[in-house]
């Protein structure tokens, strides 16, 4: 895995966002470099949700942030609606900013505790006036607060600590929606919530997506959640994409060894891969000095010599929307029962 390649990209006119050869490196001191994201390419069509999954440190958040130029990637292009964001001047980029919004994991610490909730939601609008949001007016702040399931009158008086965690996440969503964005990056938006509240927020995100025509990049380490919300899913490992394609297809028929290990670890009674005894050996290699060839080879049971020297490129698996970067994809159709 851990592959590069762009075979899985669709035609430029079919997609809203096209990311090619995205690289993000950070200096690590002593002349060393952290290779957080290395040559990642993917695209997202309008109205689609792309789920990014992988373990801590695989670069899923860094990828999403580099897409919205926060901070800009080291190299690669991010074409949004025909414009390459990496070519824009600071002011041109600023003009594009209202199109991209973000929702974070911890709903309480991502809201200013000293401000009233309505002010938090309307701030973007105050900064941008009519220029950023177009049709949005002051009255629509209330509409949006209501749309996410909160009371606009109460929001005028109350501060974030007077709301529960789930309600704070609703406030974050309202704040993200107020400038009529095209793309919202959801970075582990339900990880800090109880399942009952998680279900409320996931349903609400789906409603908002329909109502406001949103395109989502949804980051989560919870595979059941990602399966539920995503149209397409990209599985990442150590700064590379292993497998990408239609969510239902990938969860039903994963062929990358890493995807299979990840899936087999999900404690879900309905998990068809739970019986597979594979476990992940060893520790995640350091992104300062990532393994050559396929980055997963150090922990992969299927690794051969070619995996240590040559990086696999994404290739189509079957004839549907399913792409994998692996020299030896695992193709036994249904997992054995024993």
């Amino acid at each position, binding site marked *: 895995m851990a592959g590069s390649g762009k075979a899985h990209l669709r035609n430029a006119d079919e997609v809203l966002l096209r990311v090619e050869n995205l690289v993000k490196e950070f200096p690590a001191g002593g002349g060393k470099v952290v290779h957080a994201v290395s040559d990642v390419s993917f695209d997202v069509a309008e109205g689609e949700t792309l789920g990014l999954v992988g373990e801590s440190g695989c670069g899923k958040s860094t990828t999403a942030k580099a897409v919205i130029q926060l901070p800009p990637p080291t190299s690669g292009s991010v074409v949004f609606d025909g414009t390459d964001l990496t070519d824009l001047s600071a002011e041109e980029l600023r003009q594009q900013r209202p199109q991209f919004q973000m929702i974070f994991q911890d709903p309480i610490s991502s809201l200013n505790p000293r401000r009233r909730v309505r002010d938090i939601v309307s701030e973007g609008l105050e900064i941008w006036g009519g220029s950023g949001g177009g049709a949005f007016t002051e009255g629509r702040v209330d509409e949006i607060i209501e749309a996410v399931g909160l009371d606009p009158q109460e929001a005028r008086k109350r501060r974030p600590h007077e709301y529960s965690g789930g309600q704070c996440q609703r406030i974050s969503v309202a704040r993200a929606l107020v400038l009529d964005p095209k793309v919202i990056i959801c970075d582990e938006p339900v990880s800090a919530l109880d399942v*009952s509240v998680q*279900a409320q927020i996931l349903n609400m995100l789906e409603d908002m997506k329909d109502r406001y025509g949103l395109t989502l990049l949804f980051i989560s380490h919870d595979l059941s959640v990602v399966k*539920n919300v995503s149209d397409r899913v990209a599985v990442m490992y150590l700064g590379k994409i292993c497998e990408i394609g239609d969510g239902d297809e990938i969860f039903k028929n994963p062929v990358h060894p890493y995807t299979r290990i990840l899936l087999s670890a999900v404690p879900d009674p309905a998990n068809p891969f739970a019986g597979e005894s594979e476990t992940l050996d060893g*520790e995640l290699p350091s992104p300062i000095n990532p393994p050559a060839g396929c980055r997963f080879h150090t922990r992969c049971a299927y690794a051969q010599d070619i995996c240590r020297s040559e990086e696999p490129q994404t290739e189509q698996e079957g004839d549907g929307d399913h792409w994998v970067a692996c020299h030896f994809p695992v193709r036994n159709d249904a997992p054995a029962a024993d």
Partner: protein
Amino acid sequence: MSESPLLVVEDYHVGFRTETGLAKAVDGVSFTLNRGQTLGIVGESGSGKSVLNRGFMGLVSSSRMIESGSVLFDGQQIVNQDRQDLWGKRIAMIFQDPMTSLNPVMKVGKQIFEPLRRHLNMDKGQARERAIELLTSVGIPSPAQRLSQYPHELSGGMRQRVMIAIALAAEPEMLVADEPTTALDVTVQKYILDLLRELQQEHGMAMTLITHDLGVARGRTDEVMVMYGGRKLEHAATETLFADMHHPYTEALLASTPSLAHPKHTRLFPIPGSPPDIVDPPPGCRFSPRCMYAQDRCTTDNPETTSLTDHEYACFYPVGSDAGAEALKHNQDAGQTATGLKIGRAKEGAH
């Protein structure tokens, strides 16, 4: 099952004095735990599952806390007693966040030596030898080198393994695991849970596994207890509970959990409303304001616990019974429950 249980909890209460009144965090919970068994405790935040365990371990003793009822550990009453002589030696605990439960300025080795020297009176050399054995048993590579590292030099999964090594150092009879894998990736979670099961079988240790993840509870426990608002709503052998649950809250928790079995964009069923105020809980059944089955009686009377073989539940209109089916149909026809909760096609929301 014939020998005497390790832990017998009866009508146990933990309250906290707050400015607005007494917060009844644990309100009359009873259960027993046999040696070598794992009891899963599930429920939402604020259900009292952590306070219950910390309460009987004596970890919340403060001037604001009141405990009452009976907890027999190996036949010995421990409520309102000093429990320090049990800690580490007979009951150990591991927590959710291994970073904050390890001392950041003390080397890993010293933190493992401490229980060995204190509880087992080992000298330095013996403790070092045993520490290396322990680190090996929890699957830590090059254990001798790890002894001189600080917690921040280890990954989250490694830190949790160190915590487990420390907890098991004195071979306790019981382990309280409070969300031990919540902060970890699924692959690491699987490793830690496998490890716990292995070590548990090796030492015949009993365990309470506190989790909000029903999948974890289902795969890793012998029995499951469902808590809500400080009370126990349902308790059964794990297989029985998931095959034939009786409490509407258990059913609702399960229905709100996304599953790999469902295709993408499957609509989830959240539990409407929010957990009860434990200072001023709703009268009757505490779950009634959020329950699809609620009838008038649920708003005034607290349901007694019904005990079947291996299955206890506290509900007037249990799931899977005629009374439950009738109650649900009655509410669906009326479009709302006895507590005014709108059901049917109504949209769910925060209010």
